[in-house]
């Protein structure tokens, strides 16, 4: 396979990954890394590097659209970024210590956990209840624009959400993914933020989280331009299309399908990790 053919196929794969990742909120990285390592036999370090860069593109590209709509809770995002960036640096540091086989196994486990957790989500948080004193002081409470007007909501359990974000950051830095699923869970189930707010705010934070660890990857030579180019461009086009669809389409069935694909990929990653093929 020549560079030209390889680039074209990776571009198409990244485009689909970006579209699905953006629609389901699970991120494109979760498909790109298995695609590169399992199908194209790319070393996992290069795959993680390319995925991490693409994560920045996805997040920034889609966030540009979401932020304007006024759904993103920017203060909440900024505050939680303290947790995710510190975590991301710890994760990138860990990535250089762990063997590639172990990273592949961890990747598979995180994929399964993300896919399963995305289905056991609680009902969309109610808009009632008392705000916590910390969320008052940090002015994290906001409102969501709905057809019936501004709907106020309260952020709960700030410390629990902060710690969960720290873990999400470590995973992002270690595995080169946005770990959007974990971020959404931290906000949805722990902090009780409305689903639309947690999805867009998670997306808003992912770019900054990835930017914290990508410097370490670049310095170590994990980021290959020839590989990153089709991945980044493909994911960007896909994510842009996804951000156009998100506000109108119902994505439940798509999410089920995507989660099944992820489960298969996760099993493959774990098997190949134990077999030391990766």
């Amino acid at each position: 396979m020549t560079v030209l053919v390889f680039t074209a196929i990776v571009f198409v794969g990244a485009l689909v990954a970006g579209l699905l990742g953006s629609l389901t909120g699970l991120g494109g990285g979760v498909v790109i890394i298995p695609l590169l390592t399992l199908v194209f036999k790319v070393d996992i370090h290069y795959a993680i590097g390319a995925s991490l860069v693409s994560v920045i593109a996805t997040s920034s590209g889609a966030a540009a659209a979401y932020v304007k709509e006024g759904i993103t809770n920017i203060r909440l995002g900024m505050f939680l970024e303290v947790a995710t960036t510190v975590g991301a640096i710890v994760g990138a540091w860990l990535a250089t210590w762990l063997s590639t086989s172990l990273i592949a196994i961890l990747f598979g486990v995180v994929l399964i956990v993300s896919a399963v957790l995305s289905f056991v989500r609680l009902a969309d948080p109610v808009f009632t209840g008392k705000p916590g004193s910390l969320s008052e002081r940090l002015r994290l409470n906001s409102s969501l624009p709905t057809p019936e007007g501004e709907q106020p909501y309260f952020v709960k359990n700030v410390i629990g959400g902060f710690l969960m974000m720290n873990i999400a950051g470590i995973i992002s830095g270690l595995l080169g993914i946005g770990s959007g699923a974990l971020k959404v869970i931290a906000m949805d189930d722990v902090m009780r933020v409305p689903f639309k707010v947690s999805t867009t705010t998670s997306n808003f934070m992912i770019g900054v989280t990835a930017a914290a660890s990508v410097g370490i990857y670049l310095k170590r030579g994990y980021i290959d331009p020839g590989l990153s180019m089709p991945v980044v461009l493909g994911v960007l086009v896909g994510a842009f299309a996804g951000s156009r669809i998100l506000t109108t389409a119902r994505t439940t069935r798509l999410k089920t399908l995507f989660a099944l694909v992820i489960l298969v990929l996760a099993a493959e990653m774990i098997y190949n990790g134990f077999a030391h093929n990766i």
Partner: protein
Amino acid sequence: MARNIRDADLKKIIGQLLRYGVLSASAIVLTGGVVYLVRHGGQYPQYHSFRGEPDKMRQPVLMWEAMLRGEGRPLIQVGLLVLIATPIARIVFSIFGYLLEKDYLYAVITSIVLLVIVWNF
């Protein structure tokens, strides 16, 4: 109310910043990609084993010099640097925004995030 208006302005500008950052980065990456494919499109990619990138793909100054010599891959890396700089620029901008709003708590929180990122580059 005045704060709400400023918040809306801030959101609009952050949105623009992200959009133009990503657009210019992808234009540079695409240009570098075309140069790279024209020069090396017929070769065979080698990604099976990890060797690590040469210095000109890792250090911004060397990247820039190689790019000026007309090489495609360093140009892609420069585009990726612009991409990485986009969320960082968003943070820098937000700090100014919060200072203008006299929201000192969030100016400090955002500065901490910036320091964590810059400290590692």
